[in-house]
């Protein structure tokens, strides 16, 4: 790189544009400082400070987006690109992080493990993911992704006294490292191809998304570029849990601490789709390869996720595998976005619906008072509705929304994806999606059945019934979190005006 590039970068270092990410970083560091300076009795306040701080930042981003005062355009020498989609992903990751912080608070309170580090790493991951969603350059993308992934390695094995958590951590480390390597290799190939001065459209800064798209448009038959694209997609497929890179999901989801599972399910998946949405612009010239590849992934992902989830009885595995199938539905949206321009809005809507539904489901799971949350099974839900109607309702709304039952948000998400797919004439994918939905009813229904329908079945053996149902654990904050998740899911199912006007406007 020549000196001009550095000069250009220096001129465009508009630090104020990344205020939210910056603020999260400061918050993350100040948590560590607070642990040192606060007396031990006040340590319980630190998670609350983390949540409060994130709420303030979320408020800043939301008001900024609504008022349209947040900047848009390139910054940092083309490293980052700010637009409306990026702002929505910021909101998404912050929202996910706030609710994972809450889960972490509940979950860690029961254990004698260091607490503050969990929130610290969570915040760093969130900041990294927010940057990732706005990356406009493969170097930025990779650095942000690795920052997040390294954080995930730690959070997955955070319960270091339980073997399953360590096992999950190891599996995630190996698979994650492998996928990062594949991604990196793809990036290197793209770099090599794009900066070959012998080819038209080459540039010195060939990892910039815009430059790369220009290069690929000029050389759509370039073999290196094609292989690079396939490898990059493979790396991302790992993140979203698309077939055949979904193999880590059940074990890791099961072994990881519950808040981390939630973070993996929601944020990590969304990050993958943020990347895919940017890639669909980068690789648009390779559309004849890019979209068939994604279609194959989508079909296999939907079928695998749903059929594999059918036989599971472990709750975290069911959620993980159902998440695989959701990735498949979202992939359909990405493919449809090629011809239907509002399909990316559908993806975002789907993701927000998924976030709210997951928030409801995981909030219920975290309150199933079990010491080891890795072996929560359907049986642990037995009589949930009877013992705690509020949690039962939350579970019903969450699972119903995941299953795509009207009038919940998940249904509108699926509907938008279906309409987009139909408009894009993806009939085969649509057929597979329908099969997926019908199959998924079986296991979602199974969850609800164990929570509700066995209501009066086991009354005889009351004394030996599992004691996994909470008594007092649900504090004010817990109720608030669950109410927000339920209300959001219902609202987005009935009345989408605020969201759609925000998206379109």
């Amino acid at each position, binding site marked *: 790189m020549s000196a001009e590039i550095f000069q250009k970068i220096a001129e465009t270092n508009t630090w104020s544009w990344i205020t939210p990410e910056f603020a999260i970083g400061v918050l993350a560091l100040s948590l560590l400082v607070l642990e040192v300076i606060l007396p031990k009795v006040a340590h319980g306040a630190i998670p609350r400070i983390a949540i409060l701080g994130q709420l303030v930042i979320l408020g800043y981003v939301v008001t900024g987006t609504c008022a349209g005062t947040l900047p848009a355009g390139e910054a940092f020498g083309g490293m980052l690109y700010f637009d409306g989609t990026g702002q929505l992903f910021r909101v998404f990751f912050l929202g996910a992080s706030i609710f994972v912080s809450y889960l972490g608070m509940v979950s860690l309170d029961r254990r004698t493990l260091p607490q503050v580090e969990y929130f610290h790493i969570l915040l760093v991951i969130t900041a990294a993911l927010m940057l990732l969603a706005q990356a406009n350059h493969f170097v930025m993308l990779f650095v942000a992704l690795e920052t997040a992934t390294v954080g995930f390695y730690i959070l997955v094995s955070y319960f270091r006294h339980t073997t399953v958590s360590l096992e999950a951590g190891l599996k995630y480390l190996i698979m994650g490292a492998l996928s990062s390597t594949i991604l990196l290799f793809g990036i290197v190939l793209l770099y090599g191809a794009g900066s070959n001065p012998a080819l038209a459209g080459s540039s010195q800064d060939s990892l910039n998304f815009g430059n790369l798209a220009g290069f690929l448009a000029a050389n759509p038959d370039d073999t290196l570029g094609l292989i690079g694209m396939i490898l990059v997609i493979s790396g991302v497929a790992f993140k979203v849990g698309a077939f055949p890179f979904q193999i880590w999901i059940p074990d890791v989801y099961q072994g990881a601490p519950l808040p981390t599972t939630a973070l993996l399910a929601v944020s990590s998946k969304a990050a993958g789709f943020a990347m895919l949405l940017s890639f669909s612009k980068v690789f648009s010239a390779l559309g004849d390869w890019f979209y068939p590849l994604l279609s194959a992934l989508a079909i296999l992902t939907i079928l695998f996720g749903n059929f594999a989830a059918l036989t599971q009885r472990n709750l975290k595995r069911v959620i993980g595998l159902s998440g695989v199938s959701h990735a498949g539905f979202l992939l359909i949206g990405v493919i449809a976005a090629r011809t239907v321009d*509002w399909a990316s809005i559908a993806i975002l809507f789907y993701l927000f619906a998924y976030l709210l539904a997951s928030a409801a489901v995981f909030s219920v799971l975290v309150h199933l008072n079990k010491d080891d949350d890795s072996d929560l099974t359907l049986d642990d839900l037995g009589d949930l509705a009877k013992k705690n109607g509020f949690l039962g309702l939350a579970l019903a709304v969450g699972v*119903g929304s995941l299953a795509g*039952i*009207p*009038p919940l948000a998940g*249904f*509108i998400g699926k*509907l*938008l994806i*279906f*309409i987009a797919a*139909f*408009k894009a004439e993806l009939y085969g994918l*649509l057929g597979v999606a*329908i099969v997926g*939905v*019908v199959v998924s*009813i*079986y296991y979602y*229904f199974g969850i*609800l*059945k164990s929570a*509700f*329908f066995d*209501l*009066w079945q086991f009354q005889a053996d009351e004394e030996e019934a599992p004691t996994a149902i909470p008594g007092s654990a649900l504090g004010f904050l817990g109720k608030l979190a669950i109410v927000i998740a339920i209300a959001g899911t219902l609202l987005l199912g*009935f*009345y*989408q*005006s*605020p*969201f*759609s*006007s925000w998206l*379109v406007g």
Partner: protein
Amino acid sequence: MNDFASLVQFSIAVPIVAAFLTLFVKSWGRPAVQIVSVTGFALPLILALSLWGLYDPSTPGGYAFVSNLDTGLEMIGVSLHLGLNGVSLPLFVMASVVGLAAGLFAAQSKAENLSRYLFCLLIMQGGLMGVFASIDIFFFYFFHELALIPTFIMVGIWGGRDRNYAAMKMTIYLTLGAMLSLVGLIAIYVKSGAESFDLITLKAHLAEIPLADSVQNYAFGLLLFGFGILVSLWPLHTWAPLGYGAAPSSAAMLHAGVLKKFGLYGLVQVAIPLLPDGMGHWENWIVWLALGNILVVGLIAMAQRDLKQMIGYSSVMHMGYAFLGIAAMSVLGVGGVVLMMVAHGLTVALLFMLSTMVHHRTQTFEMNEMGGLAKKAPVLAAFFVCAMMASIGLPGPGLANFWGEISIFLAVYDFRNWLVYAVVAGIVISAIYGLRAIASVFYGEEADEFIESQKEVSVEDMSWAERVPALILIVVMFFIGFFPKTVTESINDALESEPVYAQVEE
């Protein structure tokens, strides 16, 4: 927004609001829950009847009481567009009548967690009112699902024998049906290019630029089988008797009586007017499958020993007549179908309710283990005989079903006259199982099991709490039976303004 449009909105909103109220007043005790929920069922009936009174058949565009609300999906052409026309109004009223009867019956039932049971039932009622009042086909589907989900829950929690299996089977079947019809509706939306889910807009648009034949064919196929599963078209009917057998009676009343009409209504109001050529393509399929409903399912119904299962099968069988009437594609035939939908809704609801009352007295649904109940409960017997006669449709000119069926038969004769033999055979079949059920439940010697069970539970005649909901249904049945014109006029007007049906007539 037309005059009185808010009445339509209220009749959808009231049950839903009442549903949430029942949960809040739970702590005030059982009577509070009962009062709130019965109000939630009664108000829609009052509103629906006043709408009936206010309805002016000469409304321009066919729809009266129209209102339009944006819910935020306008970017894909969806808005909450409500209104009633001559076809939907009778069904709308019927839904409110059956709803009140089911609600009254449920409110005094011994279900555990009564407030939650009524919550589900009220949500279902809200969805049912919405289904028939929707002009927007997205919301038409949406309200159907809103009514369907509580059914699964009620079968699963408050159901009888095999409830888990039945609930699961129903859910999977009906989800498949709903998904197929959803894709069919999306197909119409996308392929028409009208960028709207609004039925009126779609109709106007497709009248100018009809869809290509191939599109019509597959879209109609999706809707036919999607709706067909929901209406229990043979051989996709197996969820229905099982589900109704397991469902608590109020849920069965609302589902078999009202919700199942969604599919037929969808064919009459949406699929055929929008896709007339698709209908021509699938006509033979409909005829043969409908014959399967009438003859095959009819014979199965004859073989049933379980009273509730038998009623379930007979309701599946009657759907065959409806499909035949639709296949005839004339004002007479389709009008007969709509009239039959109204009448059948009332009858089958009454039969499910009465069979549960029989069960309270005999402690069984096995018809072999009953007998002689008429002596102990003459009023119940009278109601049951009336309902069963109406259901058979044969000897009751004073009952509503007769008029519907006779119009269907005449239309079917015009359509393909050999079909009438099959239809008559069907009537013989239903007369056999219907009369045999009456005989074995109410007349003859008491079975040993029944004598045995009487030692524990003394058998009394219908109480007033039981009589009121039954009376509501039977009075409306007789009213339509004696004055069918009150209903048929509006149906005729609406259908004659529909070119597909009027054309064939000429």
